[in-house]
């Protein structure tokens, strides 16, 4: 990976260093609200909060670039537009991975009984993150933050509802006895080697991510910044 890509990805975190406190507070508030509403759905609470944090992170980086017009300065440096796109996918991917690791750890520690359900939820969450980012970012690179944010608000609300429904379905099915779908899912996940799950998950994620990134590169190369 090029140094420029890493430099740009690190920048996305650096320019938001002062927002970390606000991100943590938002995360905790979201988790608290969901826990009050449904104490057993802590995984969903964390997942929702993580998705919101990720959404805020992408929005914030795009907003900082647009507000300061720094994409114009970056465009005049010896850096290809492809690198700019790759870096944004890298920084967002890193944040999503961190969220998932934390979610996986929380699920594992808090609910060893339903390890299969936790694994399913974690994978599902990650896929939803990837879908959300894969939809969001090409729109952002094509139209810029100010226009993209209005379109993506609806996209995210849709994904949010979809994600919530899936999470609740898995959560509720996982706690009931005698429901063949959940049982078979849990059994399937329990009996499948972690390496295979990881491989399938990695391929799906990678394909989605690469396609989205390629589309973003095409859009961003055509975008008139000046």
């Amino acid at each position: 990976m090029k140094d420029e890509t890493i430099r740009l990805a690190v920048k996305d975190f650096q320019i938001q260093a002062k927002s970390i406190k606000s991100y943590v507070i938002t995360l905790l508030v979201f988790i608290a609200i969901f826990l009050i509403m449904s104490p057993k759905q802590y995984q969903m609470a964390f997942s929702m909060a993580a998705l919101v944090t990720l959404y805020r992170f992408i929005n914030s980086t795009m907003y900082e670039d647009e507000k300061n017009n720094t994409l114009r300065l970056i465009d005049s440096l010896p850096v290809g537009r492809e690198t700019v796109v790759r870096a944004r996918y890298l920084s967002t991917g890193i944040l999503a991975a961190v969220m998932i690791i934390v979610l996986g750890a929380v699920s594992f520690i808090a609910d060893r009984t339903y390890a299969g359900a936790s694994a399913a939820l974690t994978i599902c969450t990650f896929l939803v993150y990837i879908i959300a980012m894969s939809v969001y970012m090409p729109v952002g690179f094509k139209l810029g933050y100010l226009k993209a944010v209005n379109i993506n608000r609806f996209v995210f609300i849709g994904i949010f509802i979809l994600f919530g429904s899936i999470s609740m379905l898995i959560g509720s099915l996982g706690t009931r006895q005698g429901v063949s779908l959940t049982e078979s899912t849990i059994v399937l996940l329990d009996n499948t080697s972690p390496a295979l799950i990881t491989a399938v998950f990695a391929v799906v994620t990678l394909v989605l991510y690469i396609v989205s990134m390629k589309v973003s590169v095409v859009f961003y190369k055509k975008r008139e910044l000046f």
Partner: protein
Amino acid sequence: MDVILDVEGLVKKYERFSLKEVSFRIPKGYIMGFIGRNGAGKTTVIKCIMDLIPFEAGSIEVFGLDSRRCSDEIRRRVGYVSEEHYFYENMTAGWNLDFFGGFYPKHDRDLASSLMRKFDIDPSKKVSELSKGMKVKLALALALSHRPELLILDEPTSGLDPVIRNELLELLMEVVQDENCSIFFSSHITSDIEKIADFVTFIEDGRIVISDVKDAILDKWRLFRIDNNCSIAGLSGRLIGVKIGEFGFSGMTDDPQGFIRELTGKYPDARYKVEKVSLDDILIRIVREEEANEG
């Protein structure tokens, strides 16, 4: 003489404006002032040189390299300061210089720090707390910190007070002397260009009107003020930017001897005055001529 920047027949079309076969060249080690009023096409030409916008026809070579095919290589060797200064406002000046400068393989952190000290920029200050003049200096520090071979400055002195402007101009002259760097410097403030440029190119309505050595321009062009016992209508049109007033008319020409011969041939009793011109006079007359032609 080595040519560092060669623009040939550049055409760029917008809906309401276009660059019309713009051509000029800068020899290595010199400063070229690029003069034109607001909207004349200066920034568009610079954006084409930097490969920030596409163009329809013509060619641009920087260091002998094609601007479109070798834009990354060219950008590594060019220091560019745009008209507006784009930094992360909530980050410090030092962070911005380090971050953006890091994209240049030849970025010299020690040089960047010494430039910040020289320009009196506090590296721990947020960019949002810097004045416009300080932001220009920060942009210049960024452009110089990788020891560029060509500095391209788009209206760097615009909006600055005379003291800061003068300070910047002195800095630019130092750069040329110390660093063996060429400068392409656009401005509508002609006095700035008159102070430091070796070559001057005038652009008006997307067309290059004059491009020559500054001293040659100032030596060649003369302003004539002619009493109203003569009529402009009887003259061949050597004068440009003609202004007709109560007591006669005035106009500018780059062939004063030829004009005097024509004037005195036609009006042997003609009373006239010949004056030296400044770059400002030339710009104003060129604009007036263009408006008269459009009218």
